[in-house]
């Protein structure tokens, strides 16, 4: 079961330059930490794909076992796990996130 979820995640993080696993949707985040990540990418004007783990219990468990990371949200750029809300915010404030995002999007 988690094998097929992991395969699906693998596919999503490969096909999308920026992939966010979150609670809720970008339009309607269901958790402050997920919202904070959405806010950062909106400020950077960086388009991203996302999936709502609350609407899919298998995904909610599967993403945690995929990364060995216990919390949501989780952000991938160019297929690489970057971190959760704290890391994304910290990288943003240090000016480290924007170049990474720009490189990924080819800007």
């Amino acid at each position, binding site marked *: 079961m988690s094998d097929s979820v992991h395969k699906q995640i693998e596919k999503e993080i490969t096909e999308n330059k920026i992939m966010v696993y979150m609670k809720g949707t970008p339009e309607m985040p269901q958790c402050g930490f997920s919202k904070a990540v959405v806010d950062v990418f909106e400020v950077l004007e960086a388009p991203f794909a996302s999936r709502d783990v609350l609407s899919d219990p298998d995904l909610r468990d599967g993403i945690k076992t995929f990364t060995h*990371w*216990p*919390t949501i949200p989780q952000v991938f750029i160019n297929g690489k796990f*970057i971190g959760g809300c704290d890391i994304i915010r*910290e990288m943003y404030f240090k000016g480290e996130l924007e170049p990474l995002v720009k490189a990924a999007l080819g800007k």
Partner: protein
Amino acid sequence: MGTSSGVETANRLGYERAMFTPEKIKLIVEDKMPGSRVQVKDLTGTQDHFELTIVSKEFEGKGLVDRHRMVYAMFGSAVGAEIHALSLKTFTPAEYK
């Protein structure tokens, strides 16, 4: 009015949850990372959303993902369960200056 059922729900949830307190979290981190400086804030007053600031030599040479994993590992399966949210700020002594 509507408030009484909310209070009852909060009490029931609070009673059923394995309790973490800022003091307990501080002890756990100091025990697992001897020599570290630890500050814990209960963000919501509900003992399940914490902000943790840790200054430790053990973070030297490690990226943020590794640092956060080290901290999560101290709490086993509690992160994401009893501890709903654990906001982390990790520094080496040099970075904290």
